[in-house]
């Protein structure tokens, strides 16, 4: 269809509105008519009722004025302050006139209403009312006549007459009341009738309205079905198309005909399908990537979980190791303290050792001096030995010469022959002496040699002793230096050990901190493990969702 849907709908709505307006107007008209009739009736009824009420009320007022007048008259007779009955009577008369005129009016109104009656029933009723009103009027007239008469009686002071005529008054009053009541009843009936008429009128209006409504509905249905068909048929085809798209068939295109909003919708649907295809394709690709990525994430989270478990185990080991180290650190500290104590004792001992070494040095020095003195003595001995040797050499020389002399003497004696025999004896003696000298010299020399050897060995020994004393002194010096160094080292060691103790203490603190840190790391790694597990779960969920997504996207044929 060429007309745009909006226009069509507007047209349909326009028709519907027109029909509705028409219907409404018709209904309003009908209603207005019915209402006006009802209002008229009601008005008439109300007027009649009001007049009736006024009449009755006037009559009551008259009654009271009358009795008041009587009372005033009685009061006047007792010379108490009272109103003038004449005035009262005037008032009463005025009321009477009003009432009578009202009754007359009522009659007239009833007659008039009868002419204007909506229906015959109403008219008949009005006639009845008129007749009843006339009767009531008459009754009122009689009553008022009697009442006036009473006034005269009162004026004249004929109270006994008053009393005697009271039943007449009462009868007349009762009559009037009855007739008034009858009129009222009639009017009430009229009201009922009016209501019925009104209802009837409304019913008629309703019926006619209903019929008009039916006609309008029919028209509206025809038009709107026409319009709807022009809309829903293409919409239906679009719906089918969309349903197919909803089932996943993104391969088709919507049929586009005409130039209205539906054709626009068709083109938009096609665009949408194209877009959906792209999106589905991208989603499929993204779902694949997501799936693979989540698989990787899952694998890595599992690795991470394993790593976190390993880390946790390592942290446990570290904690245990740290505890061991802490304990060993405590042991080290304890040992260092013990060593420091021992070092102090050693220091004291080394001081004593130094003193001992110094005394040893002094003793060595003394020994050396003694040895040198001994050496000097021995050397002096050696010199004496030398002197003795010289002497012995002299003696030896003497012995040699004596020997030579003896030899020469022996030779001379041999040369002298017989004469030299006694000389030979002397020469022998000399030779013996010389031999003894030589022997003695030899002995002395050997003894000197022994002495010299002894001296030599003594000197050597003394030299050795001096050397040993020297070396002993050097050793003592070395020992002294060593002990000093030892003392220094021990002092340094003491300081070092104190530092070690302090350092071990700090190390303890540090180790405790490290242990705490390791525990924190353990907790953190536990948390990491927990979060990794959560992550794993989440990754698994995401993976599942990715799988779902993939499955969901698989639906689409593109």
């Amino acid at each position: 269809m060429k007309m745009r849907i909006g226009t069509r709908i507007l047209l349909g709505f326009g028709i519907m509105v027109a029909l509705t307006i028409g219907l409404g107007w018709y209904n309003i008209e009908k209603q207005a008519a019915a209402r006006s009739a009802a209002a008229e009736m009601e008005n008439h009824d109300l007027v009649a009722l009001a007049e009736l009420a006024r009449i009755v009320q006037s009559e009551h007022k008259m009654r009271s004025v009358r009795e008041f007048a009587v009372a005033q008259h009685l009061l006047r007779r007792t010379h108490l302050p009272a109103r003038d009955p004449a005035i009262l009577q005037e008032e009463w008369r005025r009321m009477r006139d009003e009432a009578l005129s009202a009754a007359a009016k009522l009659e007239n109104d009833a007659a008039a209403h009868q002419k204007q009656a909506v229906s015959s029933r109403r008219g008949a009723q009005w006639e009845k009312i008129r007749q009843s009103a006339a009767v009531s009027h008459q009754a009122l007239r009689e009553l008022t006549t009697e009442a006036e008469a009473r006034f005269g009686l009162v004026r004249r002071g004929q109270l006994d007459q008053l009393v005697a005529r009271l039943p007449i008054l009462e009868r007349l009053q009762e009559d009037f009341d009855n007739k008034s009541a009858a009129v009222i009843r009639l009017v009430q009936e009229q009201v009922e009738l009016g209501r019925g008429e009104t209802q009837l009128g409304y019913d008629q209006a309703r019926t006619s309205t209903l019929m008009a409504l039916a006609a309008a509905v029919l028209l509206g249905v025809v038009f709107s079905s026409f319009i709807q068909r022009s809309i829903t048929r293409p919409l239906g085809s679009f719906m089918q198309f969309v349903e197919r798209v909803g089932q996943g068939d993104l391969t088709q295109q919507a049929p586009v005909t005409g130039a209205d909003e539906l054709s626009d919708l068709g083109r938009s649907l096609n665009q949408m399908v194209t877009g959906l295809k792209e999106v589905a394709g991208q989603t499929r690709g993204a779902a694949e990537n997501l799936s693979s990525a989540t698989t990787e994430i899952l694998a890595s989270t599992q690795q991470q979980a394993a790593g976190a478990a390993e880390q946790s185990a390592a942290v446990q080991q570290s904690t245990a190791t740290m505890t061991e180290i802490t304990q060993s650190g405590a042991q080290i500290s304890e040992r260092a303290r013990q060593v420091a104590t021992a070092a102090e004792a050693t220091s004291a001992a080394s001081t004593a050792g130094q003193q001992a070494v110094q005394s040893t040095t002094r003793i060595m020095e003394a020994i050396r001096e003694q040895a040198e003195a001994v050496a000097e003595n021995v050397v002096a001995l050696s010199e004496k030995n030398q002197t003795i040797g010289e002497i012995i050499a002299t003696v030896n020389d003497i012995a040699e010469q004596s020997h030579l002399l003896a030899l020469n003497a022996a030779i001379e004696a041999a040369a002298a022959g017989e004469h030299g025999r006694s000389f030979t004896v002397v020469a022998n003696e000399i030779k013996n002496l010389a031999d003894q000298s030589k022997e003695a010299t030899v002995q002395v020399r050997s003894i000197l040699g022994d002495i010299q050897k002894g001296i030599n060995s003594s000197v050597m020994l003394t030299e050795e002793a001096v050397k040993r004393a020297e070396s002993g002194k050097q050793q003592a010096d070395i020992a002294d230096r060593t002990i000093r160094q030892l003392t220094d080292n021990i002092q340094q060691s003491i300081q070092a050990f104190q530092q070690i103790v302090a350092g071990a203490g700090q190390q303890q603190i540090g180790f405790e901190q490290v242990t705490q840190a390791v525990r924190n790391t353990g907790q953190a790694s536990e948390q990491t493990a927990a979060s990794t597990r959560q992550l794993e779960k989440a990754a698994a969920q995401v993976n599942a969702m990715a799988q779902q997504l993939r499955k969901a996207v698989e639906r689409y044929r593109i």
Partner: protein
Amino acid sequence: MSEPKKAIDWQGVRERLRESQFALDTALEHDPHQVAAAYRDRAARLALRPVPAGSAAAGTPALVFRLGAERYAIPLQDLAGVLPDPKCALVPGAPPQLAGVINLRGEIRPVWDLARLLDLPEAGNGASRFVVLLRQGGRETGLQVERLEQIRVVKAEEWEHPGERFPYLQGVTSDTLMILNTEALLQEEFR
């Protein structure tokens, strides 16, 4: 010094020193007992009968001396004397066997190197310390020798004649003491 050193017995040492001091002090003193013993001994010896020269000296007294490693002897009758430490004045142009000349009581006497004379191989090695003077009719001749030992009476039974092959030897004893023939020696030289 692995053996345990004995503690020095200073007491014993001092004791010994005291004894030696005492001995030294008394050494030069004349112990009356020793003196008396010496006198007795001397008296005994003086009382001895002199041993007859002939019976006692049944041999030839000879002066034993040493040259190098060998011992030689010369009969006393051939000797004029002995001299210690000769300083021989060298004579230029003299044969090598002549060690030099010495001044003996104002007289010039030749001294021969016995080692060279005897053609000993170690000639000139040993220090000559003595000169043995040979009697040569008033003209003494010296022989350089190393050491003088003793005067020994060589008995006849010990004397062995070496023969003509050794002109310088008068004889040889059983303990290889060679008795020199100085005449032959000197004659050899004067030839």
